[in-house]
């Protein structure tokens, strides 16, 4: 089941990763080799096998829904590339907004 370059571009878009047109062939080849290798799993009949979602079978722990101190705004924004008015600034998302 060889991967097409169109599929790789689709996956790159899903992953929010820009790939240059001159990289696509190499990336496709690398991914194909790994996918070809992992295809051996299909040899195993796993119809009656439960997937391992946790190695010890532990359930997600719950805690009481209580207000507790959290990261102060200044600390949360300390590493932000574009802090604005106690928020994270980003480029515009839709046409017509401010840049």
């Amino acid at each position: 089941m060889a991967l097409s370059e169109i599929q790789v571009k689709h996956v790159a878009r899903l992953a929010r990763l820009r790939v240059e047109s001159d990289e696509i062939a190499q990336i496709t080849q690398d991914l194909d080799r790994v996918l070809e290798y992992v295809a051996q799993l299909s040899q195993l009949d796993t119809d009656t096998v439960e997937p391992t979602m946790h190695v010890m079978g532990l359930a997600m722990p719950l805690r009481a829904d209580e207000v507790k101190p959290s990261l102060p705004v200044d600390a949360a924004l300390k590493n932000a590339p574009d802090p604005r008015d106690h928020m994270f600034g980003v480029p515009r998302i839709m046409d017509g907004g401010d840049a």
Partner: protein
Amino acid sequence: MRAYDMTATEISQRVHRKEMSATECVREVADRITALEPLVGAFLHLDVQGALNQARAIDALSDDERQQMPLAGVPVAVKDNMTTMDMPTTAASKILEGFMAPYNATVVNRLKAAGAIIVGKTNMDEFAMGSSTEHSAYQLTHNPWDLSRVPGGSSGGSAAAVAARMVPIALGSDTGGSIRQPASYCGVTGLKPSYGRVSRYGLIAYASSLDQIGPLARSVDDVALLYDIIAGYDPLDATSIRAETARVSEGPVDWKGLRVGVPKEYLSADLGGVVAQRLQDVITQLEAQGASVLEVSLPHTAYAIATYYLIAPAEASSNLSRFDGVRYGYRASGADLLEMYENTRAQGFGPEVKRRILLGTHALSAGYYDAYYLKAQKVRTLIRQDFEQAFALVDVILTPTTPDVAFRFGEKSSDPLQMYLSDVYTVTANLAGIPAISTPAGLADGLPVGIQWLGPVMGEDRLLQVARGFEELWPSSTWPGLGGEA
């Protein structure tokens, strides 16, 4: 004896007895690091002044307060994927260049509370993805035994720093062998605890169902000492096990009556001659001590790498989606939000990280999830059951840590799949969630050979005893001479 030749156990004893101050210790260690770092390249960030300040603070405490600190004055190195408020944390990625975390990892807080002095952050493969530390965005780390060879990875900086006697102990993280394989290549001891034993709060996540933090050291006692400090329940980590962690037992194992399993599937054609021969020598030694060495079968071994290289990239693709240029880290320009995301991630991540993100995104995408991710999680169950059945018959399992000794720079980095295949003996412990330790078993042509001991889930105590017993049988008497020293 110089401070850098001492184990952590020796250093803390001397500091407790006031035979040496923490400041003296850190000064000697810092001088050595400064002299050797240009050769080894173990650290992404060093803070000698900060370390001296921490040491002075330890020295200023009362005797009673110091006695309460099991690592009083002990210099320690921390892999750069664990957050530290007073040093940058980059995971060896350009996307986190200069990142100053707003909180400490739980393990970092535990080290500090125990009196340890964090001297710096160690180099690694970017986001812990790799087996040679060549995938660091910043620098190469050289194996102290042969500077033309890799230290292994991804915790290559931590293993090299310990082997070069820059620090007695270090923290690494292990998702598919990233503590044990570099420990093996650098001739030190490295433990991957059971899944959930050590809090991962503040560990930059790679593959959340596999990641675990663990200690590296030049002696089993030091590994146990550090393990004791970092293990235990942490409410800040939802995957942390609520279990008693009594101090690990002291002393070596009694070999007589110990059942040691050797999986027949691990003795395949892939195994290099020197490692196969050493494993055979070890088995002979153990039998001479009265251990019963039995052949066991782990029938799904052949599927472990395929399983691992679906699960780990799938989880990585999800975990690494947080690096989008919005809240922290590098941001590239872009005409709109989508373009900014795509440019930031294209410029911020290195090639191996991109490969795994793409592979993982594909394995999780609509139409492929069942065939890839879910299938791999089912095969994982079979691999886990293999171990459960084997541990009904034996107390520990003995394997090689790696198929061969440390390789040269560039030898495997051109072929990703070839690099993945060398993880064959280590990934199974992460898939099964069991503890595993790599211990040195001497040298072959001047390069360390490691062997691995696997135990049942939560079986760290027995594993450490076995490792201690083996260390007595097979002591590491020499450490690499560097920079013209004898």
